[in-house]
């Protein structure tokens, strides 16, 4: 197996809905074998529209999509035995039991794992006899994941896999995805949880308005963003009382009520300057918070930039 093999190649993908709405406006990226790649974005950014084309459910309006070297839409029969798909929602007859649903799907995939093993894997072992309509939202997501894993796929598509799960369920799912990745499975994940992308993805792309706003490893994407310091000034003090911001290395600031937020690319220098000033002036900075950029800042920063541009 070639680690540099591109399992997915997406080139200038566009998708236009029947009403003329262009949901995906020219997206290019690739996913290497054994990689977890996350598509991140707000609701309506085009994540699901993109993934559905790569899964082969819809043809692209234009552009080229290759999964395992083939067109997933026109060469469906060749691609599907090697992929597993977890859709964003449902798709189970409400009146079937969990076991019947898995048995049905097992009959439809080649080389299915034992049904009990898959249910155990996603933590539904004790719910086999329950009708789908009686499952909680989180349990349905797990059933969805079980079906996606049933054929032991090389390529796994997970569309918002942890939406509706509680904290423990999300951690279980993350552990499972990491174990699959370690076993060589290539994963394309969409999520609007930033910690999920940060914790799971080897590389990611942030989608905004049907385009890729930024892409790279989580570290690369966050490194492009400034760090942040925020604190509350006591009554009678104003931003102008601080030393000149440029000298502190501050590259942007906001004042909201009494709360000051500073952005900087030199967190240590700015923090030292602010704290030294506070010490000398005998000022107590309540709610003091200093943090390196996280994916969240990157995400919000991109949304902000795009709004300014629009």
């Amino acid at each position, binding site marked *: 197996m070639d680690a540099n093999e591109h399992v997915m190649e997406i080139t200038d993908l566009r998708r236009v809905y029947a009403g003329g709405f262009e949901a995906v406006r020219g997206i290019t990226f690739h996913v290497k074998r054994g990689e977890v790649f996350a598509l991140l974005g707000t609701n309506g950014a085009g994540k699901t529209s993109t993934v559905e084309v790569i899964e082969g459910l819809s043809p692209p309006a234009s552009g080229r999509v290759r999964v395992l070297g083939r067109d997933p839409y026109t060469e469906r029969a060749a691609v599907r035995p090697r992929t597993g798909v977890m859709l964003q929602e*449902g*798709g189970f007859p409400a009146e079937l039991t969990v076991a*019947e649903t898995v048995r049905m799907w097992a*009959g439809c995939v080649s080389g299915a794992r034992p049904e009990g093993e898959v249910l155990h894997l996603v933590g539904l072992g004790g719910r086999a006899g329950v009708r789908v309509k009686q499952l909680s939202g989180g349990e349905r997501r797990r059933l969805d994941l079980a079906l996606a894993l049933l054929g032991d796929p090389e390529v796994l598509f997970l569309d918002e896999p942890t939406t509706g799960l509680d904290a423990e369920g999300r951690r279980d799912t993350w552990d499972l995805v990491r174990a699959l990745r370690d076993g060589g499975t290539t994963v394309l994940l969409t999520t609007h949880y930033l910690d999920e992308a940060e914790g799971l993805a080897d590389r990611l792309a942030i989608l905004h308005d049907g385009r890729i706003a930024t892409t790279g490893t989580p570290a690369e994407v966050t490194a492009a963003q400034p760090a942040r310091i925020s604190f509350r000034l006591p009554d009678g003090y104003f931003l102008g009382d601080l030393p000149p911001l440029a000298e502190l290395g501050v590259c942007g600031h906001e004042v909201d009520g009494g709360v000051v937020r500073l952005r900087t690319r030199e967190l240590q220098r700015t923090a030292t300057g602010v704290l030294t000033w506070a010490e000398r002036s005998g000022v107590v900075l309540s709610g003091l918070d200093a943090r390196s950029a996280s994916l969240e800042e990157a995400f919000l920063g991109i949304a902000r930039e795009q709004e300014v541009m629009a």
Partner: protein
Amino acid sequence: MSSIALAPAGRRMRALARAELALLGRNRGVVFTALAVPLVLPFTVRPALDRMEPAKSGLPVGGAMATAAIGFSFLFAVYTSLVNTYVARREELVLKRLRTGELSDTEILTGTALPAVALGLAQALLLSVACGVLLHTGAPRAPYLTVLGLVSGLVLSPALAALTAAVTRSVESGQVTALPLVFVSMVGSGIAVPAGLLPDRIASVCALLPLSGPMRLVGAGWTGRLDSYELLGALVSALAWCLVAVFAVRRWFRWEPRR
């Protein structure tokens, strides 16, 4: 090659059909319509058949009733119940999910239809035997025509159901969108009204209706009287409708709910 490709397809459709059969058993409304209507309706048309001098239509009362019963099976056990099933599975996103897997589109529609088709077939056979014994109709004189009629009717009814599902937005509206074909077929295709009783000009138009070909073959199975010209017409009409319906389904069937 083809037998290698067919075996997995058969396995996939069997898995799907098995799940559909379980679902069919759990939907009392559909089971009632599918089972009771074809069993009861033929008897309600019997007085009318008696009065309409079936001799004129060339079909004895027993044969006319058995033909009617088979037609009702096509319409209620297969067509109406499958409109319901296709729409329900689409709206539950089941069809979309199935399309993420290895099943082809044809396998999805066929596998989903199998329990209803099997039910329709079992009903048709049972009713034929019942009419044969109770009304002394006896066995069909031309069984091959009966078989041709059954096969074409059982292929055409699911295809028409898929087509009707394409223009049906919800399970509830399916109760309306399925009606036109049911009524037109009952009157025009020789189900509730034997085809021979229609005025000639109307009859020649009605012969072009989707289920007229299969019904004509079924009816002729009892009498054994169908000249080769009529046989060809019925066969061509049945085949043409199958092709048109399959083409239309491939072109217009909707796999996901409208957003």
